[in-house]
């Protein structure tokens, strides 16, 4: 079973993984990616982070990415959890967890989902440094990662 959710409150990645596993004995591999809030960005110390999203579209975009992963790989369960609102360093920002029978599918689907999320799901980070607030710029390396999946013939 797949699940995508946007959370305004902190979440426990371990708890989310337990929910993904359930009691399904057919799962042979489980891959997780957890994105955490770093205290340094672009060489500056970051005190706080605020995540904005587009209610409605964000959930839809995440579901479409999970659907696309399901169409590309033989995987059993996906769980995507993403924070919005105010975050502090060390807080989990995002969890992508994928369960499959064998490891290769879970590894690839997990990487695909986070790569697509980075360039297609409407979230925006605003960080607070000692100098004040600033919007985080998108990275070209993230675009390249998404493009690589479009070119690759899996």
């Amino acid at each position, binding site marked *: 079973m797949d699940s995508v959710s946007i959370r305004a409150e902190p979440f426990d990645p371990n708890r989310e993984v337990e929910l993904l596993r359930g009691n399904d004995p057919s799962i042979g591999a489980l891959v997780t990616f957890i994105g955490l809030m770093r205290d340094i960005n672009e060489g500056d110390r970051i005190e706080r982070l605020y995540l904005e999203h587009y209610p409605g579209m964000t959930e839809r975009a995440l579901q479409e990415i999970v659907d696309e992963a399901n169409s590309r790989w033989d995987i059993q369960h996906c769980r995507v959890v993403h924070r919005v609102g105010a975050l502090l360093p060390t807080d989990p920002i*995002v969890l992508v967890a994928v369960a499959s029978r064998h490891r290769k599918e879970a590894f690839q689907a997990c990487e695909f989902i986070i790569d697509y999320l980075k360039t*297609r799901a*409407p*979230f*925006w980070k605003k960080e607070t440094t000692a100098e004040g607030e600033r919007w985080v710029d*998108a990275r070209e390396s993230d675009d390249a990662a998404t493009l690589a999946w479009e070119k690759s013939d899996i």
Partner: protein
Amino acid sequence: MIQVLFFARFREELGVESEQIELNGPSSIGDLLRILRGRGEAWARLFAEDQRVMMAVNQELADKNTPLKAGDEVAFFPPVTGG
């Protein structure tokens, strides 16, 4: 009428979160962008041809050629930075 939404840096710099716009005849997002650019100042700067602008129609990613019809929800936003 279409509903137009602005997010993140765009919302802050334009000072607008959402507005209703009347389109005259068949239009695309490109036509709407020309109307917005014509307002000058921050509008012309943010939506200049060389700026990276993401757009969505009815909550699906779109591009300048996407056609618009009455009742559509259109959104403009900077490149996304989640994850």
